C-alpha cells in the first residue's frame, strides 16, 4: 500500500510542478506532462518499469477524450462540416501517409512497417493544438476552424486505424512474442463474448452492441439522468457519467470493438441532450488527469540511451517530418483557398505528430507490427515534434501575423457578422424573457438552469436548454464561457448571483456580465463585484405600473411618459452618489444614516422635479415644450427691423 501511495505522490508532484511551469513559459500543458515524465523517469529514475502498466490504464484517458469530442459534436454540426472534414481531413491524412510511406520505402523499410509509420505520423496533436488555439483565441479564425476539421477527422480516423493495424502484424514478431508465453497468454485470454463465433453471428453481435449504444443513449439515458439529477447528489451524477463511459468501453471490448469508437458514438448520441454540459464537466477532470498520466508515462518511457545514440537520426527525422507535414498542409491550404495568415496558421499548427501517435505506437508494438527498437525511435520523433510545436506558434505570432497585418492596414474595419454565444444562467421567469428576445433576434444562446423541471418545460417548447448549476466553474467552461461574449445572470438566488458574477469577472474579465439584481442593495453588491450591466428585477415593471396608475387618475399619457423619464433620469443620476455613500460606509451595516439621508434627499429631488412641472414654466421634464415668454415676438420683430435698417444703410 505504501508503495502505491509513494508512486502516486511522485506522479502528482511531478505534474503539479512541471505543468504550471510549462504553461508559464508558453509551452502548453501537454509538454509540461511530458517533461514531468522525463524528469521522474530517465533523468532522476524515481519510477521504473511500472510505467508500462500504468500506461495501459492511462490510455483510458484517450477513450474519455473521444467521448468528450463526441459530446461536442452534434450530428447536425458533423453533417454541416462534412466537406471540410472529409476533403481537407481525408486528404491530409491520405497524402501525409503516402508521402511518409514513400520515403520509408525508399529507405528500404518493409511495406507494412512503412504504412504504419505513415499512419502514425499523419496524425497531429489535438491536445496541443486545441489547447493553444484556446489560449491564443485562434479557434474562430479561418485557419483555426480548418485545423479543427482536420484534427477531428484524425481523431475519428484513429478508430479504423486501431482496427486495421493488427492486420499488418509481422509473423516473425509474433513468433518472438509467443516465446514470452506469459505475456502472450495475458493478451489472448481476455474475456470475450465473440470468441469462437462464426462470422455471421459475430456481425450480428457487433450490430446489436452498436444499436444498444445508440438506442440506449437516445432513449434510456434521459430518464436515468433525470432520476439521478433529481436526487440532487452531485457525486452520484459523476458516478453515473463514469458508469456510462466505462460500461460502453466494457461492452465494446467484450464484442471485440474499439472502446474509443463506442464512447465516441455515445458522445455524439448525447450531444443533443440537456445533460450534455453536466456530463462533460463531470468527465473532464478524469479525462484530463488520465491523459496527463498518459503523457507522463510517455515522457518516463523515453529512452535517453537511444536518443543520445541516434541523436542525428532522430533530429533529422523530426525536422524532416515537420517540414513534410507543413508542405502537405500548405498544398491543401492552396487547394482549399485558405488565404493570408490563416494559410500559415493552418500549416504550422498541424505540422507536429500527436498524442495518438503514442497510442498507435504502443498499440503497434503490442500487436507485433513494428519492432520495439524502431518504435522507441519513432516515439522520440513524435515527442520531439510536439516539443517544437510551441516554437512554431511563436513564429506565427511574431513573424507571420505582423507581416499580414501591415498588408491589410489600409482596409476599413470589418463588419462583425459573427456574434459570440450568450450564456444565460437561470431561465425562470426572468431569464426566459431575456432568452426569447435574444433568440428572436437570431442570437445564439446557451441556456443553463439547475432545475430539471424547468429545463423539461423549456425543452417541451423547443427552447434548447441544459441542466446544470451555472455557479460551477467546470460547467461554465463546458458551456463555452471562454468564447462567449456575454453572460446573463438571471438566477433568483441573490447570493449565488453575486458569487457567479465575482468568479466570472475575475477569471474571464473579457466576458461582459449582465446581472439581475434582487433589490437596490444587491445591485450595489453586484456593481462592486464587477457586473457590467445591472437591472433590478422589479424596478421597470413597478415604474410601468406607476405609469398606469397616473393615467387612471386622469394625467395625460404623454405627460406621464415625460414624468417617468424624469423619474428614471434623476434616479439614475443619484444612484451613483448613493452607491458611493454605500461603499464609503464601513460600519458593516450597509444602509447607515448618511445613506438614509441621501435617499431621503433623492426622494425630495424627484418630488421637486415632478411638482415643478405644475408650478414653474421651466420644468425639468418639459423644458423643450415650454413656450417662450409672452411678448417675445415683438422683440424679435424689432431686432429684425433694425437688422434690415443696418443692411440698407451699410
Amino acid at each position, binding site marked *: 500500500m505504501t508503495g502505491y501511495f509513494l508512486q502516486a505522490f511522485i506522479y502528482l508532484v511531478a505534474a503539479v510542478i512541471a505543468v504550471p511551469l510549462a504553461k508559464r513559459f508558453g509551452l502548453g500543458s501537454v509538454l509540461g506532462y511530458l517533461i514531468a515524465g522525463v524528469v521522474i523517469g530517465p533523468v532522476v529514475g524515481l519510477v521504473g518499469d511500472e510505467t508500462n502498466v500504468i500506461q495501459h490504464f492511462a490510455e483510458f484517458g484517450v477513450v474519455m477524450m473521444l467521448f468528450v469530442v463526441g459530446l461536442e459534436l452534434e450530428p447536425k454540426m458533423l453533417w454541416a462540416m462534412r466537406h471540410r472534414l472529409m476533403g481537407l481531413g481525408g486528404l491530409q491524412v491520405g497524402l501525409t501517409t503516402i508521402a511518409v510511406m514513400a520515403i520509408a520505402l525508399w529507405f528500404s523499410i518493409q511495406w507494412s512497417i512503412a504504412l504504419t509509420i505513415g499512419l502514425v505520423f499523419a496524425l497531429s496533436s489535438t491536445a496541443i493544438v486545441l489547447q493553444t488555439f484556446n489560449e491564443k483565441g485562434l479557434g474562430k479564425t479561418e485557419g483555426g476552424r480548418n485545423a479543427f476539421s482536420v484534427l477531428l477527422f484524425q481523431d475519428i480516423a484513429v478508430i479504423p486505424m486501431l482496427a486495421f493495424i493488427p492486420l499488418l502484424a509481422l509473423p516473425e514478431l509474433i513468433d518472438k512474442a509467443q516465446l514470452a508465453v506469459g505475456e502472450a497468454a495475458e493478451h489472448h485470454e481476455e474475456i470475450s463474448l465473440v470468441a469462437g463465433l462464426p462470422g455471421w453471428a459475430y456481425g450480428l453481435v457487433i450490430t446489436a452492441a452498436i444499436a444498444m449504444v445508440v438506442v440506449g443513449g437516445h432513449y434510456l439515458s434521459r430518464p436515468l439522468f433525470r432520476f439521478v439529477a433529481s436526487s440532487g447528489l452531485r457525486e452520484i451524477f459523476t458516478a453515473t457519467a463514469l458508469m456510462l463511459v466505462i460500461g460502453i468501453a466494457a461492452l465494446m471490448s467484450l464484442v471485440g470493438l474499439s472502446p474509443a469508437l463506442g464512447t465516441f458514438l455515445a458522445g455524439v448520441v448525447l450531444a443533443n441532450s440537456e445533460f450534455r454540459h453536466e456530463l462533460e464537466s463531470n468527465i473532464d477532470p478524469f479525462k484530463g488527469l488520465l491523459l496527463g498520466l498518459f503523457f507522463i508515462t510517455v515522457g518516463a518511457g523515453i529512452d535517453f540511451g537511444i536518443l543520445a545514440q541516434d541523436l542525428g537520426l532522430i533530429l533529422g527525422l523530426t525536422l524532416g517530418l515537420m517540414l513534410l507535414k507543413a508542405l502537405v498542409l500548405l498544398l491543401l491550404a492552396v487547394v482549399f483557398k485558405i488565404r493570408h495568415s490563416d494559410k500559415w496558421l493552418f500549416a504550422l499548427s498541424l505540422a507536429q505528430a500527436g498524442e495518438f501517435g503514442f497510442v498507435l505506437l504502443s498499440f503497434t508494438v503490442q500487436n507485433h507490427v513494428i519492432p520495439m527498437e524502431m518504435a522507441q525511435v519513432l516515439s522520440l520523433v513524435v515527442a520531439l515534434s510536439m516539443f517544437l510545436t510551441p516554437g512554431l506558434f511563436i513564429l506565427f505570432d511574431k513573424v507571420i501575423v505582423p507581416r499580414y497585418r501591415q498588408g491589410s492596414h489600409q482596409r*476599413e474595419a470589418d463588419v462583425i457578422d459573427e456574434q459570440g454565444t450568450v450564456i444565460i444562467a437561470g431561465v425562470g421567469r426572468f431569464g426566459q424573457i431575456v432568452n426569447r428576445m435574444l433568440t428572436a433576434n437570431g442570437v445564439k444562446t446557451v441556456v443553463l438552469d439547475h432545475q430539471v423541471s424547468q429545463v423539461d418545460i423549456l425543452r417541451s417548447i423547443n427552447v434548447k436548454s441544459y441542466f446544470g448549476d451555472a455557479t460551477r466553474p467546470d460547467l461554465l467552461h463546458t458551456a463555452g464561457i471562454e468564447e462567449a461574449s456575454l453572460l446573463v445572470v438571471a438566477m433568483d438566488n441573490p447570493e449565488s448571483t453575486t458569487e457567479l458574477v465575482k468568479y466570472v469577472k475575475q477569471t474571464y474579465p473579457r466576458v461582459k456580465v449582465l446581472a439581475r439584481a434582487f433589490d437596490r442593495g444587491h445591485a450595489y453588491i453586484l456593481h462592486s463585484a464587477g457586473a457590467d450591466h445591472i437591472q433590478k428585477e422589479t424596478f421597470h415593471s413597478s415604474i410601468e405600473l406607476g405609469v398606469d396608475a397616473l393615467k387612471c387618475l386622469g394625467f395625460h399619457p404623454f405627460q406621464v411618459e415625460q414624468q417617468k*423619464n424624469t423619474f428614471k*433620469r434623476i434616479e439614475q443620476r443619484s444612484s451613483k452618489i448613493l452607491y458611493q455613500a454605500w461603499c464609503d460606509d464601513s460600519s458593516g451595516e450597509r444602509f447607515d444614516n448618511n445613506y438614509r439621508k441621501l435617499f431621503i434627499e433623492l426622494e425630495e429631488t424627484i418630488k421637486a422635479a415632478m411638482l415643478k412641472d405644475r408650478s414653474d414654466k421651466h420644468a425639468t421634464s418639459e*423644458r*423643450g*415644450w*415650454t413656450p417662450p*415668454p409672452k411678448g*417675445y415676438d415683438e*422683440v424679435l420683430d424689432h431686432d429684425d427691423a433694425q437688422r434690415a435698417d443696418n443692411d440698407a444703410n451699410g
Partner: protein
Amino acid sequence: MSEIKKRILLLLAHPSQHRSEVNIPLFETAKAIEGVTAVDLYGEYPTFDIDIEQEQQRLVDHDIIIFQFPLYWYSTPAMLKEWQDLVLEYGFAYGTDGEQLKGKPFLCALTAGGKEEAYQAQGYNHFTIRQLLAPLEQTASLTGMHYLPPLALFGARTASEDDRMDAHRRKWRRLLKALVEDRVDLDMASGLGKLNHSLDQIILGD
C-alpha cells in the same frame, strides 16, 4: 495644411440604420475626419429622451453645425425635429441672451429619394431643395447662424447601384475637410441653391 481650425458637430438622424445604404457610409466617412464630432442621435436617444444639457454643451463646444439625414416628407426625421424643439431653447438659441449659436455656419447634408430634376418648379416636387428646407433656413436665421445651402445626394435609393456613391463620398469628405481647415468661402456659398456642383468655386486652395 491639415490643422484643425474649426470643429464640426455632425448630428445624424437615421431611424433604420440596418437598412441604410448611403447615410451610414457617409457617416463613417465623416467619423474618420479629424475635427468632426459625429453623433448618432437615434443611437444616443433611442427613446427620444434627449439630454438637453448635453446637446446644448455640444453646440457651444463646436464651430460648425451639420444635420445629416434622409429627407422624410420634405423635412427631417422626427428625431431631428424633436431635437430642435428641445435643444434650441428660448434664452439659449434665440430671444433675450439667446446668442449661443450666433455666427456658426449651419449646413444640411441630406439624401433624397427623388431625382435631382424632380426638385424644381417644373418637376413633380415643384420646389427646389433649398426652398423645401426653408424652415431650417429660417431657424438658422433666427438663431443667428450662417446658413449654407444643402449638400444633397439625389436618387439615393439607386445611388450604390449606379455607382454614384464614391463620387458623392469624395465630395462629402472634401467639403468636411475644407470646413475643418476653414477654406470655404461662406459668403460665396450662401447664394447657391445647393452645394452639389459648386465645390470648386467655394473651396479655396485645394
